[in-house]
């Protein structure tokens, strides 16, 4: 029995040990991959990445066909969590000024195809290193280095801003060195742009400053840099000899050419008294002719050169004095119906009393003068925007014969009268002092009177009616003439005859640049003449004035201005054109009344 049991146990052990045991291996040759061959770029930077504000860095990772396991971004060894969709986002202020290491850790599959690779237990790892340079400090100021004339334009050079927190340059231009704000000429976001061609510079002096704007929007303006260079200058004014012309007062004003020819737009020439007002668009033209120059005062000529940009002009002034004074002559209407009211805004002025009121007027510049029997009272009123009546008082009773110089040229104030002995002129210069006022006999060329005393009534008086600014200069000159009664035989009654005919008086001007003795009045013209009258000049000016010409007179209730031409008796062939006369006449029945107080019976002509 034991044998049987032993047998069974043996069989049993065989049974349980007979389990199938699978065998076999399948070794596959797989090439190991040990080194990473992928590349990484951060916003195309190779090493140092500038950071100035809110920053977005684009991570361009090329891992070929591998699978990315993990990508970590570390700044200052601190992993950042703002990496998303290949972009790293942060702000410079989170880091602070200076350098900060940026590390990019990349882990991918190995791509070997091995068992471990398939089970993501094998990979490649690489680190990429960059340096973040953070610049958030305020920008520093820049200096303009120099300037030059670059092919007729002004080139400004300034320092390059080398820091990374650059945003833009702004170039300013100033016309003086005060604290006034400049004009923004130019702005550039190109950091390498360190020059600018200014086409608004035409020479002369101005200032430039360059500003730099940082990425944080902070703007620092550098010091002003003075630029001064040659500009078009007035050189001379010379008389032009014109043999075929009777005009002997033609002058030529010349100037130097601007060096900034590419910026040139035009020359503008002007002067006081409206003598010259010209524009020259040809840069090669460097002279203009000037006509009708007044005598006896400085004439400032002004040359303004305009660049292509109409700001930044260069201006030059040349003063010129033509010596002998030249005068104008006007008469003033006596209007008896106006009482003590002086309507200065009217073309004519009459003064009936030493006490009066000047009614409101606007933008009128009226000097007026008064002759008395032995004195001349002369007053100037320079007023702007006077809206209220202005009262003034003359010291003396004033005779009714008045001579009034209407203002034609700024600051030009004359007084003139005519007698058998000559023409008398009171000239008031630019200044208001007594020395600038004289009475002058144009025939004898002698000063026959001077200011005895002057009165300043409300000089520099300022009122502000209705809130408006008012300037009033009222100066009364009392001029004492030598033997005035004998030399100035003004017919008072003559004016009285014309009373009631306000407006029908004559206005008469004479240019005395031609000596009266050599002058004849040979024609008189008007636009509306339908008949001609010749008046012997002697009848108007007296026998002692050897005028032989006749005057054409036109009769109308509103007489036109009549132009009288003078011809040199000594040289009639040349027939120089002299300055025109203007006169106004009134014709009543057969009598011609002139504005000078003379009357002419036409039947006697």
């Amino acid at each position, binding site marked *: 029995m034991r044998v049987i049991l032993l047998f069974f146990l043996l069989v049993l052990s065989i049974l349980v040990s007979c389990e199938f045991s699978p065998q076999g291996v399948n070794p596959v040759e797989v090439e190991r991959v040990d080194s990473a061959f992928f590349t990484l770029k951060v916003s195309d930077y190779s090493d140092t990445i500038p950071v100035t504000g809110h920053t977005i860095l684009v991570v361009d990772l090329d891992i070929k066909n591998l699978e990315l396991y993990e990508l970590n971004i570390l700044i200052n060894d601190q992993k950042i969590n703002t990496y998303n969709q290949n972009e790293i986002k942060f702000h410079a202020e989170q880091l602070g000024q200076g350098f900060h290491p940026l590390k990019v850790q990349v882990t991918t599959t190995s791509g070997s195809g091995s*068992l471990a690779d398939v089970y993501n237990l094998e990979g490649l790892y690489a680190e990429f290193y960059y340096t973040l340079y953070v610049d958030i400090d305020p920008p520093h100021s820049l200096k303009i280095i120099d300037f030059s004339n670059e092919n007729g334009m002004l080139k400004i050079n300034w320092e390059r801003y080398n820091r990374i927190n650059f945003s833009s340059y702004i170039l300013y231009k100033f016309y003086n060195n005060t604290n006034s704000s400049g004009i923004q000429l130019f702005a550039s976001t190109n950091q390498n742009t360190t020059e600018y061609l200014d086409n608004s510079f035409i020479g002369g002096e101005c200032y430039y400053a360059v500003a730099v704007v940082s990425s944080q929007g902070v703007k620092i303006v550098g010091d002003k840099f003075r630029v001064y260079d040659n500009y078009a200058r007035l050189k001379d004014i010379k008389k032009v000899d014109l043999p075929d012309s009777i005009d002997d007062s033609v002058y030529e004003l010349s100037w130097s050419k601007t060096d900034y020819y590419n910026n040139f737009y035009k020359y503008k020439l002007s002067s006081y008294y409206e003598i010259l007002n010209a524009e020259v668009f040809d840069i090669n033209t460097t002279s203009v002719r000037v006509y009708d120059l007044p005598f006896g005062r400085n004439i400032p000529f002004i040359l303004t050169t305009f660049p292509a940009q109409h700001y930044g002009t260069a201006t030059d002034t040349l003063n010129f004095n033509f010596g002998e004074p030249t005068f104008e002559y006007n008469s003033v209407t006596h209007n008896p119906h106006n009482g003590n009211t002086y309507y200065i805004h009217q073309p004519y002025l009459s003064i009936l009393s030493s006490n009066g009121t000047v009614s409101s007027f606007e933008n009128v510049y009226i000097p007026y003068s008064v002759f008395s029997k032995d004195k001349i009272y002369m007053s100037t009123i320079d007023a702007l925007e006077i809206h209220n009546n202005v009262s003034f008082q003359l010291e003396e009773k004033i005779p009714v014969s008045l001579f009034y110089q209407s203002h034609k040229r700024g600051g030009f104030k004359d007084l003139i009268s005519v007698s058998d002995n000559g023409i008398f002129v009171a000239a008031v210069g630019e200044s208001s002092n007594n020395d600038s006022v004289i009475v002058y006999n144009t025939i004898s060329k002698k000063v026959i009177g001077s200011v005895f005393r002057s009165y300043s009534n409300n000089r520099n008086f300022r009122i502000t009616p209705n809130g408006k600014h008012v300037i009033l200069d009222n100066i009364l000159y009392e001029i004492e003439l030598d033997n005035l009664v004998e030399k100035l035989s003004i017919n008072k009654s003559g004016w009285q005859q014309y009373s009631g005919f306000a407006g029908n008086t004559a206005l008469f001007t004479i240019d005395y640049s031609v000596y009266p003795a050599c002058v004849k009045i040979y024609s008189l013209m008007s636009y509306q003449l339908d008949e001609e009258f010749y008046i012997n000049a002697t009848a108007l000016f007296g026998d002692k004035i050897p005028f032989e010409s006749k005057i054409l007179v036109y009769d109308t209730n509103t007489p036109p201005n009549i132009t009288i031409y003078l011809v040199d008796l000594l040289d009639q062939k040349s027939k120089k054109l002299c300055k025109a006369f203007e006169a106004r006449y009134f014709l009543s029945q057969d009598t011609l009344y002139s504005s000078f107080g003379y009357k002419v019976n036409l039947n006697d002509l």
Partner: protein
Amino acid sequence: MIFRLHLFLCLLTGLTVKLQAQNFNINYGFGIGSYTMTDLKKLQEDNAGNNKLDYKTTEDFPSYYRSYLHFSLDFGDDFAGLNLSYQSTGARTTYSDYSGEHTIDQIINGLEIGLFYNYSIVNRNNSKLYFGMQANSIISTLKLKEEISFFEQHISESSEERGKSIGLNIGAQLGYRYSINSFFIGLEGGYVLNPVNSGFKFNEGKSKLKADWSGYRISVTIGLKFKSGKGAGAG
């Protein structure tokens, strides 16, 4: 294992009782069998094919050793008895490279308990040529084993899952036995058909996966003959 041992002892006890009254034989057979295992081969193919790597199947349920114990009553020309057999086969799909190794094994064991009947076609002297049939219930145990190792990472993991099923097979066999005194040796061959099998039941649940033990069998056997009463050959 305890289940099989328990079953074996029960049968042994029952047979021992019979030994008192019958001539009976007890023999141990050892041989080889082939197994169809259609479902499991399909599973193995899937294991190999679902990988990116070049897995190969090195074992695919090959013919493998089997052994059995027969307790039979000898009636002269025929003999019948109890069959207790054990058989096993399996499969392996594997891959290895420099980085690691991965094996996927299936091992299936079958424990048959059944009855057989052999009829002697020739029974002459000590030789007996016989033909027989058998019907067995078979308890199949399937082990799904997987091992993976990553050398550089020093990672090694394995897993095993077991499932059981039960089935029924029938077979026919032709054998020859030669007796020397109380011993006999023999050679036996046949075919087993395994038409009925339940799906394997794993811890996670029952699957549709079935064993298929159908296949040829060939074995050699050695046994003892016992006579009832006096003169029993072995005791």
